[in-house]
């Protein structure tokens, strides 16, 4: 019995020593990589189940590689537990920086803090975390202002009256509410514009189609659908086509994804807010490089303006950006 207990204590002590040894080794790995080459950069993306985020992740990876780093993309699948596992692996794996598209504004803070404590700098892209003292910088789409502009256009196209549906994104994501509040800060000033239903479709095309199909059962006479992203706008449009209402109901999206830019050109979707995933991803990679080289004076939050794309100006835009900037 006594021998078993001694063995048990020994195992605990060994595990503790092993933990210290791993940490030390990781530190040495980082030191070696910094002295020998540029090292590895992790690109952690909330979900790769949406083309917009695929562009964000791939651009960040490409830019990091152009700058001389080895870059790897991690897909969090909109799951904070998976995201947390990725951070554990990244910290243990000797990465020199993390380009991070968070899953949850509150739930992702702990991961960034963990990385900071392990001296791995994190650069948030597109989505923010509700903290301004853990990431090095946060390069964010100015969703609220973009949706203010979209809301003004919505009011104009609706001629200040009618009924509409709003499809929200992921409820734990600040972008969802920044977009919704920006839109409502304009539209709610017009009492003859009535929202008959507001439901989440979690930024997902298939869910948006299903949710709108269900809403159309109860509210068959709507005039417009405002969607918190372009994937949902395309899903909503599919539901309207299936219901034979695509010509009667106006669809508004947000993102600037390829299929929606094409659809605006074809007159199927009315408008979207153009975010600039490529620009933000490049900026994040470049700032990580500058940080590694010694720069420290980064603004904590950098809003990147969103631009309204409509049939009047769609010729100036292509998927995920302006034609002149591609």
């Amino acid at each position, binding site marked *: *019995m*006594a021998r078993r*207990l*001694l063995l*048990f*204590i020994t195992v*605990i002590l060994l595990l503790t020593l092993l933990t210290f040894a791993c940490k030390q080794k990781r530190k040495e790995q980082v030191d070696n990589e910094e002295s020998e080459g540029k090292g590895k950069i992790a690109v952690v993306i909330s979900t790769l189940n949406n083309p917009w985020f695929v562009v964000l992740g791939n651009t960040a990876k490409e830019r990091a590689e152009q700058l001389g780093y080895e870059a790897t993309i991690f897909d969090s699948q909109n799951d904070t537990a998976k995201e947390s596992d990725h951070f554990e692996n990244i910290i243990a794996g000797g990465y020199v920086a993390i380009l991070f598209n968070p899953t949850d*504004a509150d739930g992702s803070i702990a991961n960034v803090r963990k990385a900071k404590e392990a001296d791995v700098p994190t650069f948030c892209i597109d989505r*923010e975390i*509700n*903290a*301004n003292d853990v990431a090095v910088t946060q*390069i*964010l789409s*100015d969703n*609220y*202002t973009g949706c*203010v*502009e979209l*809301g*003004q256009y919505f009011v104009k196209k609706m001629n200040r009256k009618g009924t509409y549906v709003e499809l929200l994104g992921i409820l734990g994501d*600040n972008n969802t*509410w*920044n977009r919704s*509040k*920006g839109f409502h*800060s*304009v539209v709610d*000033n017009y009492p003859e514009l009535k929202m008959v239903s507001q439901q989440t479709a979690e930024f997902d095309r298939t869910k948006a189609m299903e949710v709108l199909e269900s809403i159309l059962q109860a509210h068959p006479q709507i005039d417009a659908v405002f969607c918190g992203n372009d994937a949902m706008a395309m899903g909503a449009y599919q539901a309207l086509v299936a219901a034979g209402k695509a010509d009667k109901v106006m669809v508004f999206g947000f993102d600037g994804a390829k299929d929606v830019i094409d659809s605006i050109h074809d007159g199927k979707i009315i408008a979207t807010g153009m975010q600039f995933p490529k*620009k933000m991803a490049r*900026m994040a990679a470049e700032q990580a490089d500058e940080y590694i080289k010694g720069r420290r004076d980064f*603004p*904590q*939050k*950098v*809003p*990147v*303006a969103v*631009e309204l794309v409509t049939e009047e100006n769609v010729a100036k835009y292509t998927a995920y950006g302006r034609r002149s900037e591609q």
Partner: protein
Amino acid sequence: MKKACKCAVAAAIIAFLVYNSIYFENLEDIKQQQRRETFNAAEYARDFWDNQLFSVLDQAVDVKELIELFNTNMNEAIKRYGKAPGVSRIYAYLINGNGTILTIAEDFLEISIREPQINPDIKITTGFYIPGNAVRDASGLIDVSEFSDTMKFNEISGEINKIVVKEVIRPFLDKKPQVGKTIRFLGATQVAQDATEETKFQVVEVVPIRLDLE
């Protein structure tokens, strides 16, 4: 010996459990977090309007000079007077000037600032609500990095706009402005950096901070 071992194991288990179930945080961090949670955008906007904004109003540029600069050298206009809170093609400016009222519409006044007074140069917002961030951004006084989440930064803008409607626009409209009268204005505007790429700059839209009939 057995007893000592049992005690050691118990101590190790307790230490392990305690270590994994208790964590310490800086008290000041917690207080700071609580202060953030009690953030009130209306109070922030009121303080901005009453105690901060006046300190930058003397930086307002003459609107004629600014329009001239937009048409001749937009980059110089941005460099000298433009402000943006992040990466944007749209810059905010503080401007002032005076002109003659040409039109009184439901949501705006059209003003001519030069002779002959035929075409409007300025459109002053006078609606019951104001969208956008012109005043907040043109002031350059509020830094988005101060806020743990950007929604607070946006809410401030909404509250500033409410003050403009209540304390600038309504009192001015109560004075019953009429077409042909001269007004003096100081306000904020937002202009895209490519606004003059295709045509010369036409009309500056202004969110008023001060409005007076002369």
